[in-house]
């Protein structure tokens, strides 16, 4: 088990390096440092000299990958890639291009609001998905199952933008039940969290119910369930005791892989509800073209994805002892 995990972690290293090189290539050729300087120095009074100075002061006055002017190891180290991208490998995110803030400190701070929204959305969402899916499986063949399925397809065919727009309009403006948007720290965050969580659950519930329903129905069709039923166990007991337990594997695949991404927050939701989380941070960086931040977030996102894959593999072993590691 331990050896397997170590092997998985080692396997992640080339991927992380690959991501790093790829993003550096994209970001330093897409948007040359000159472009960045012009954008950041603003509208008024930009001279070519000011651009040169800016590049110098932010450490962009190097070639992208190879510095032919230097000698020895400095050929590689005195480059934008080495100065800006390689430190990411040891979580040194550096400073933002636009207002020179420490990105690492910012990420640590913004992680919490993201978690405050995404964790309840995820936990309550999955619970509700499972609950409703079981209900539909339980009432299979009745009009509830049919209506539920239709509702599921309908719900997942609606753009999440509609949920946010109407949610704010109905609950915030018309009924005055929640603040329309905003955030506060600690316990005071509660009233701001409810509406985004409801909207988040709504936009995911259609797909969720449909998926888990198929999982349960598949499970109900299996032999051991028929045996249990034949023994005279009530339907609800069959469903909630036996089927649920055995349906855990597909559920886990779906669930565990997304856990690391909870830190990452939701891009759209956080912008609309003015939640100062990581998603908001990213959108802001995209719109102001602060590539130091975007680069850091790309890298962070990749790490979380890889973490999710490893977590899923590990969790398999915990649920299903039959899974072996070759």
């Amino acid at each position, binding site marked *: 088990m331990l050896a397997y995990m170590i092997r998985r972690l080692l396997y992640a290293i*080339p991927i992380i390096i690959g991501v790093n090189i790829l993003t550096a290539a994209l970001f330093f*050729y897409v948007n040359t440092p000159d472009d960045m300087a012009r954008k950041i120095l603003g509208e008024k009074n930009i001279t070519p000299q000011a651009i040169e100075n800016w590049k110098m002061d932010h450490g962009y006055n190097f070639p992208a990958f190879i510095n032919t002017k230097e000698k020895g190891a400095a050929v590689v180290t005195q480059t934008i890639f080495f100065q800006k991208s390689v430190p990411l490998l040891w979580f040194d995110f550096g400073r933002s291009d636009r207002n020179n803030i420490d990105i690492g400190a910012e990420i640590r701070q913004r992680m919490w609001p993201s978690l405050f929204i995404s964790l309840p959305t995820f936990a309550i969402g999955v619970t509700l998905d499972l609950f409703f899916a079981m209900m539909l499986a339980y009432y299979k063949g009745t009009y509830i199952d049919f209506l539920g399925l239709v509702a599921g397809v309908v719900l997942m065919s609606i753009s999440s933008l509609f949920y946010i727009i109407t949610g704010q309009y109905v609950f915030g403006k018309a009924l005055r039940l929640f603040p329309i948007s905003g955030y506060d720290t600690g316990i005071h965050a509660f009233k701001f969290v409810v509406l985004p969580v409801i909207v988040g659950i709504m936009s995911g519930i259609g797909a969720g119910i449909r998926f888990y329903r198929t*999982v349960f129905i598949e499970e109900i069709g299996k032999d051991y369930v028929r045996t249990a039923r034949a023994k005279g166990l009530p339907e609800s007991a069959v469903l909630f005791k036996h089927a649920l337990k055995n349906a855990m594997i597909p559920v886990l*695949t779906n669930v565990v892989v997304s856990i690391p991404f909870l830190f990452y927050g939701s891009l759209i939701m956080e912008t609309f509800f003015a939640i100062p989380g990581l998603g908001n941070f990213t959108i802001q960086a*995209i719109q102001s073209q602060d590539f130091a931040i975007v680069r850091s977030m790309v890298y962070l996102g990749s790490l979380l994805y890889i973490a999710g894959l490893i977590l899923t593999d590990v969790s398999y072993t915990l649920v299903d002892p039959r899974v072996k590691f070759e």
Partner: protein
Amino acid sequence: MPVIFATDLIVYILFAGAFYFMLAVRKEGMLKEAWKDVKKRRLAMVCLSVLAAYSIVALADSIRWRDPIRNESGRPALSPSGGYIYSAEALSILDRALSRIRLENEKTYSAPLSSHLYVKESIELPDGRVAREYPPLRYPGAHILGTDKVGNDILYIALKGVRTGMVIGAGTTIVIIPFAIFFGVIAGYYGGLIDDIVQYLYTTLASIPGVLLIVAFMLLFGSSGYQGGLIRQSDLVLQAFVPNDRLFWLCLILGVTSWTDLCRLIRGETLKLRELEYVQASRAFGVSRRGIIYRHIVPNLMHLILITFVLQFSGLVLAEAILSYIGIGVGPQMWSWGNMINTARLELSMEPVVWWNLLASFVFMFGLVLPANIFGDAVRDALDPRLRFK
């Protein structure tokens, strides 16, 4: 003078693909069985016809040509070299069919079927005083879904959004099919180092958060291409082709971020097919590897492609709206439902509310995504129920 965008090819390929499958289901085999299964479901067939209707609108909006410019006497103006001079506007069949609502513009907002503008304006009264009134429309009652901020007919805009939605939904998968097949098959068939490299490639790509990859890519390629609206001379190649099309780049990058699933599926299926008896047999008969891949492996992957296609379709249409909201979707000049929602968002804060823009984009989008979802399910169930747990 015809004009063909890079994305038009996607629509043509979509129709060619549909035609191919129509022929394929006539032959005996897996597809025929599946088709029988799908045909039994009435709902799926209804959805298929809705999808067909959308596709036809998209096709009608993908065949376009430029008219020669006419001078005041109505005759085409000639250039010094004697040729026609063509207008910068390439009108599609759809545009021409809808030329009434396309051209009957108002000044600004008007509610569906209304006879007056929705917004008061300063009107100079005969006595020189200025009053604020609702001015009458130029074409009262002509706009079934109302008009937008600059007076364009909403029904027309929503119909123009059909092509964008279809291209994103279909094009994304179509664009990446060749790559996915190529990499998936060589990884699965040859195994070893090639397999490792391909797996490394798609794991690395999949690791980068899609949205951010799209951002970087669209900033690189998106802003230089054709953004929608009038055609610039600089966009045209050989007077008829527009290869640098922002929408096409969007399809491509959306494809790159979503190709890993398909590639993985194809790789797995190839691994399985490779071991099948008849493949083994033809190898024994000395058929070359390439021959085996062409003759036995690729044709047997079609069902996977079809499933991926229909299942990804709806998600991609929805993604377009979100990307346009962030500002990295289709260009602002391109008619799309995402752009419609984006502007409609602000209109919701008007009092009284301008609801028809949001409603129209909702209905048109929902009308495409819902049937796509239902039909997609039917196709998947018919072809390969196991894939539910991919």
